[in-house]
């Protein structure tokens, strides 16, 4: 207990005397945590959004209008038996027409086209995992020796994967990777800045360290104040960032979510766990930064 007080006293003393670099590190950590604090909810939100999109990824198997009922029934069974297929929904021409009418917001399309439904029947094939799109596709239409896909049933006219879904997959993947890379880079930057602060602190306190060694302080006894100093820097930085985040949430995000249901409905992270993650992360990064620096520059 007395020992702990001693460590904190030493760390406090060092921070006060070493104010300039400490404040620089605190501000940098605050900026980093602020950015990560904005990124995490955005990342989470974009993640949940693309999850919605991914759930909708499906194959559309269009059939010939002339397909026999028995053929359709058999094909349905075949598709249902294909691995990675979650559900198969038959869409009759009549149902397809209704969907079209709804999408176009126009009733009685048939009247305009001589009462003859031009739409083919189709299957909507849902997958258990969007990543299995290609394997299912090739199962339904394995490539022939020349390489062009041949449908497994003569009833199949065309198999369509919505091209959009591929693009969405690519874009959301890229966005996620980009955000993650930025977060990691910022994390590394703050690691080095904490390290630098500790390095300056070691330099400023080399006399203390020398005396501590002479009077027989153990290595960890010498190190602890520096580690605590680093963690305090981390916590201060995180606290500032969390304060700004909270103000931003109250002033910007909350009024917006009143107006736009979309924002409110986003499946993003709650504020309390976010704060816990940010403060915890800042502490870990700061402790790591001081630890690595101590190993390199505190020769004891």
């Amino acid at each position, binding site marked *: 207990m*007395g*020992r702990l007080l*001693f460590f904190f006293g030493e760390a406090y*003393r060092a921070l006060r*005397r070493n104010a300039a670099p400490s404040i620089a590190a605190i501000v940098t950590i605050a900026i980093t945590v602020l950015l990560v604090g904005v990124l995490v909810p955005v990342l989470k939100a974009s993640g949940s959004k693309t999850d919605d999109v991914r759930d909708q990824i499906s194959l559309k198997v269009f059939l010939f209008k002339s397909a026999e009922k028995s053929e359709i029934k058999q094909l349905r069974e075949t598709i249902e038996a294909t691995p990675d297929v979650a559900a198969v929904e038959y869409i009759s021409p009549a149902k397809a027409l209704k969907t079209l009418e709804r999408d176009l917001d126009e009733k009685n399309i048939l009247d305009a086209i001589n009462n003859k439904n031009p739409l083919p029947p189709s299957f909507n094939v849902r997958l258990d995992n969007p990543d299995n799109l290609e394997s299912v596709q090739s199962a339904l239409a394995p490539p022939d020796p020349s390489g062009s896909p041949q449908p497994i049933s003569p009833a199949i006219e065309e198999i369509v994967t919505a091209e959009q879904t591929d693009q969405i997959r690519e874009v959301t993947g890229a966005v996620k990777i980009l955000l993650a890379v930025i977060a990691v880079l910022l994390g590394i930057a703050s690691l080095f800045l904490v390290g630098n602060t500790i390095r300056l602190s070691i330099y400023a306190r080399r*006399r*203390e360290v*020398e*005396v*501590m*060694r*002479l*009077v*027989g*302080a*153990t*290595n960890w*006894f010498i190190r602890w104040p520096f580690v605590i100093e680093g963690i305090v820097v981390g916590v201060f930085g995180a606290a500032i960032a969390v304060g700004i985040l909270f103000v931003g949430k109250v002033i910007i995000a909350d009024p917006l979510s009143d107006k736009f249901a979309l924002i409110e409905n986003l499946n993003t992270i709650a504020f309390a766990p976010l704060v816990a993650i940010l403060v915890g992360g800042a502490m870990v990064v700061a402790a790591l930064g001081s630890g690595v620096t101590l190993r390199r520059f505190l020769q004891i």
Partner: protein
Amino acid sequence: MATARRRTRSRTRRSRIDASPDVHARRERPPIVQLRESTVVYPGGHVGLERVSLSIDRGEFIFIVGSTGCGKSTLFKLLIRELEPASGSVHIAGKDINAIPKNRVPQLRRRIGTVFQDFKLLPNRTVYDNVAYALQVTGTPRGQIKHQVRDILRMVGLGAKLHSYPDQLSGGEQQRVSIARAFVNHPPLLLADEPTGNLDPETSIGIMQLLYRINRSGTTLVVVTHDREMVDKMKRRVVQLHEGRVIRDQAAGMYASEEDTTEFGARMREELDVGSEGTV
């Protein structure tokens, strides 16, 4: 007459180191410091100490003298294991300090007080805190620290300056603080590197008195010094180093004989030729 006696005693000391029959006789209480053929080579090849053998008994008061660069500081660093010998061994209180694991070195240093010419006080702490520091790092309980620090500061004559900062003290007072810090643990061995190097003669006497008092309480004192007058007046054992070697080891010696090194070497050789008239 006096010179003759000194020479005799000096040879006595040598025979103890070389043949060391006394070491076996005193097995139950080994010398506090024992160097055997210790050689220190710095990175780059510079030889700091060359085959130095030295034995210091408990309770001794010994001066180490020699010109700058003779290896005095190297000897100090060797004793607190700042440096490790390239060959030979260093025993403190019978223990080979280079055989103990690295994480036990702090425990070794707690049993050796160190005093330096530049005091090595922490400028932003009070006298009390500076001394208490040595106890805090060893995990002494607060109440005990308070007690011990007040006692030791009273002993060195600074009982009234507990809350002064080092820059408010004179050089002599600062050195007293640093001695208090070195001695607050009551270590069996106290190393002082030019403790009076920065002080005027009057103040130096006070510091020497203090060291003498500490020695009288049973602590072994090893004092590196350039203070010729002090060494001559104290009439204690003197070890002279030159270019990393012990060239003189004399009980109740002077800072230096009037002769220069060459003459001294000639005399030593002559003395050794005379044979063993020394008694143990």
